[in-house]
């Protein structure tokens, strides 16, 4: 992950087609187009796992089905705790076979349609419910030296609790950290970076102009009349966090992609 930061490799989020889509073939084509573009740019494609509890197809199965090229340094798959055990094994086995190295392990958002991993599934009988910590431990135990595992950090949660959680994640073997979206310098993120100087941190930059979605993501309301220019904000984030990587969420491939190429390099 250090390599990504030193070489200014963006983490570009790509949302896989939703299960509810009525035009799957076209959605898959679009996905492949975005994925290949990220590959060509030398960035890292980050594929979400039923984000916000909305059912979507899985990154590993799309890569498999469409036979997309995997450069181990250029793919990151999100993996949350809303799976069946057999599904989890299948995901991990496919990722291993395909050479997918980076996994972002999160607790995730459930929904009525999503099964939840049970403590016994990940050999964690001592807990009431499975979080990213137990999942992380399980993967470390059963797939040693196979993956580089990352975890999420939310600076908008009560800090004491969040830092305590982060400690457990790091103790369980997390090797990099991705934050929730930030739109300015954030004291809690600063504190976290100080606390873990040896762990690569990737801050999330919000590339959509839809502020209500951002409000949802950060968990506090951002006034709709806030002036918000994603590209300018991104540049500021680079200046504020020169030693961090950047994860771009909801990047506009038509409108913004061509602009980001120079953003980081010019800082």
């Amino acid at each position, binding site marked *: 992950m250090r390599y990504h930061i030193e070489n200014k490799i963006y983490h570009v989020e790509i949302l896989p087609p939703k299960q509810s889509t009525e035009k799957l073939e076209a959605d898959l084509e679009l996905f492949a187009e975005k994925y290949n573009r990220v590959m060509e740019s030398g960035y890292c494609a980050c594929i979400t796992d039923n984000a916000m509890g909305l059912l979507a197809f899985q990154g590993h199965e799309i890569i498999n089905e469409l036979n997309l090229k995997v450069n181990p340094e250029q793919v990151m798959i999100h993996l949350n705790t809303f799976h069946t055990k057999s599904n989890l094994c299948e995901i991990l086995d496919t990722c291993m076979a395909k050479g997918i190295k980076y996994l972002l392990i999160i607790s995730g958002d*459930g929904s*009525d349609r999503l*099964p*939840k991993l*049970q*403590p016994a599934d990940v050999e964690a009988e001592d807990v*009431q*419910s499975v979080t990213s910590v137990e999942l992380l431990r399980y993967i470390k135990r059963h797939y040693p030296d196979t993956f580089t595992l990352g975890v999420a950090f939310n600076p908008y949660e009560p800090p004491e609790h969040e830092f305590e959680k982060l400690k457990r994640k790091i103790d369980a073997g997390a090797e990099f950290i991705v934050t929730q979206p930030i739109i300015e310098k954030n004291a809690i993120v600063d504190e976290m970076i100080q606390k873990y100087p040896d762990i690569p941190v990737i801050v999330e930059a919000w590339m959509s102009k839809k502020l209500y979605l951002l409000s949802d993501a950060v968990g506090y309301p951002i006034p709709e009349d806030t002036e918000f220019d994603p590209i300018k904000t991104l540049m500021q984030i680079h200046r504020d966090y020169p030693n961090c990587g950047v994860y771009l969420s909801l990047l506009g491939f038509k409108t913004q992609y061509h602009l980001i190429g120079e953003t980081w390099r010019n800082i």
Partner: protein
Amino acid sequence: MRLKNDSDKLKYSNVWVVAEVLSGKIQPVTHELLGAARSLADAKKSKVWAVLLGHNVKEQAQLLIPYGADKVLVVDDSRLSGFSDELEARILVRLIKKYKPEILICGATTRGRALIPRVAVVSECGLTADCTELSIDPVSGDFLQTRPAFGGNIMATIRCPFHRPQMATVRPRVMKAPDADFSRNGEIIFEEVTESDASKIKRILEVFHSDDVAVNLADAQIIISGGRAMKGPEGFKMLGRLAARVGGAVGASRAAVDAGWIPYAHQIGQTGQTVQTKVYISCGISGQIQHLVGMQSCNLIIAIDKDPSTPMMQMADIAVVGDLFEIVPGLTEEIVKL
């Protein structure tokens, strides 16, 4: 039956209540329905009949009269000791043919909702599920049945102009049970199970009744409900102590059930049960729509949560902003002192 003409309607009279009997005991919903049936029968100037199917229930028949039954039809047979949908449906269909009730109501319990659709299909008449309001149309004299649909978002009023009897299942705890009047008189009529009733029926191998009142959501006046914020089974034990103190049941959100902290029988919401209690106390349930549709019709909703902005806290009549792990035990303790 489908009516051939309007005068056919006159062949049908009286309001029937199908009694709910569990482990040989008449359930409160039956008393509620007798109350509702009384107003309907008064509007139609007809009588209230109760239908009691079960085993060793003869003694209980008399107990329906104080709540408003003018006649009680009793079928007492060992084959009726468990819940055999096929057998009970055949008996009801036969009795309906014989006595021609104008209206038939039954509790919208798991048994009622399995049994009455079978009766309605064979009797070729309409059925409205899970009604919360019943009345008689002053113009047509038809039975008006109002029920929530789309998880309580729409109230639909339904009638069956061309079929008799008119049938409805009625949500427990919505109608008010009348006070028992032991001076009332009524007639008890005994009917038998016929061989054809009892052909091709299921075999009940085992019956388990839980004595734990905390489980029976449909019967409770107060439900104390928890979600993911309960953090584990211990949290639900804490809710259980408050529930026991107030004689209530314990409910749960889907997340808590899926986490394995509490059995599915406690789940309230879209893929669980719909409840309409007097008081619903939500503890740390944020209020996903799938949960809200299962409880939004409760009379008084109290929400306890640290976060005042959740949908549940907005919907609540009383929103308590605070730490439920302090407030719930505090409440339990204070109620003991009362």
